[in-house]
């Protein structure tokens, strides 16, 4: 447990030393989501309609940016080897890496989303649902992304492969996440979508670290 906290603390410390990583993902999200209102023009009805999908796709692509570096640096400098032979089970350490990734590239998106939602003329209720959906959805993106990052570790041209591998797996999160906001706007209530999203999150939280660990062990052989 201590080792897991140490990993989270170290990763956050390194991000603080080199802020470009967290800021790149965040500004990518801001810019991509802002292009749509600028391109479509002042049509509130249309903007409200596309808002959930656009914001979610923006968040999806923004988390993809930092994904490849999740294990790559640790692999290159030998830290991953030390993690693999640590008395602490590797799966806990991997979970620590995933938590750190979410804190760095998921949580800022959750906090920024309501501000961007205003551009799409979403009301307060819809903004709340959007935040809640992203709060459940972004950890899911980090968890699933970790499997892809571990599988493509050390592969040449891994970046593109990673996108091809991970983006299809993001589809359920996209459907239920954007669906939650849409059904709230339509007056149907977001409960169903959010419950499903939470269920997928719980399942991924259980299985994804194991899958990522198995992939890392193969990469280390």
């Amino acid at each position, binding site marked *: 447990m201590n080792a897991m906290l*140490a990993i989270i603390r170290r990763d956050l410390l390194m991000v603080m030393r*080199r802020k470009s990583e967290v800021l790149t993902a965040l500004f990518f999200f801001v810019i991509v989501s802002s292009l749509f209102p600028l391109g479509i023009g002042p049509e509130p009805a249309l903007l409200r309609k596309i808002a959930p999908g656009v914001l979610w796709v923006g968040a999806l692509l923004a988390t993809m940016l930092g994904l490849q570096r999740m294990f790559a640096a640790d692999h290159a400098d*030998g*830290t991953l*080897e030390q993690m*693999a*032979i*640590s*008395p602490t089970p590797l799966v806990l350490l991997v979970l620590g890496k995933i938590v750190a990734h979410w804190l760095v590239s998921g949580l800022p998106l959750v906090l920024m989303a309501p501000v961007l939602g205003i551009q799409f003329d979403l009301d307060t209720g819809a903004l709340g649902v959007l935040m809640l959906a992203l709060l459940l959805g972004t950890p899911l993106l980090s968890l699933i992304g970790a499997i892809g990052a571990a599988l493509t570790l050390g592969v040449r041209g891994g970046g593109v492969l990673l996108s091809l591998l991970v983006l299809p797996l993001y589809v359920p999160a996209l459907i239920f996440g954007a669906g939650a906001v849409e059904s709230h706007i339509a007056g149907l209530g977001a409960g169903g979508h959010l419950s499903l999203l939470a269920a997928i999150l719980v399942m991924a939280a259980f299985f994804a670290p194991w899958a990522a660990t198995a992939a890392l062990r193969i990469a280390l052989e």
Partner: protein
Amino acid sequence: MLSAHGLTCVRGDRRLFVGLDLSVDAGEWLHVRGENGAGKTSLLRLLAGLSQPAEGEIRWCGQPIRDTDSTYRQNLLFFGHHGALKEDLTALENLAFAAAMDGVELQESNAMQALYRFGLKGREELPVRVLSAGQKRRVMLARLATRKAKLWVLDEPFTALDVKAVELLSVLISEHVAGGGMAVLTSHQTMPIPGGRVVQL
């Protein structure tokens, strides 16, 4: 304590070594020698449990290391080719993180002492990125002085070290072995450390 029986290592379709037996007891150290590409690093990675042998078994205190994973790892310190140092962190932070990975508490005074011993006084708060290659190596080696592991598995520990650091490291290994520790290391140099045996690959 550590013994290997009939180890066979296969890389691609090449057999690096077949049916290798070795053992190290408390107060002994093994010098693994061989040409480049003979499988020295592969052997050390097998001993560290990072990869699995094609055939054969490695035992720690009579138990296969697969079964005694956690106890074996608590007693093991492995140095690979890469230093496992984070360039953006200071020497002190790197040592603290390495200790956390090893599951041990590290007092700051102990870490400082180890860094001083390796001549890094005044550099403990600098990011590792600004240190020279040899100094980075010294930061890594300072970890040896802070960690009470019984078995040291060191892959080319003398690379990039100056004469003084080589001597320092030899003393450190001698002390470790004299204190009932074990070490397995690869090096192209001959080392004046008593109690050593050579494994030729």
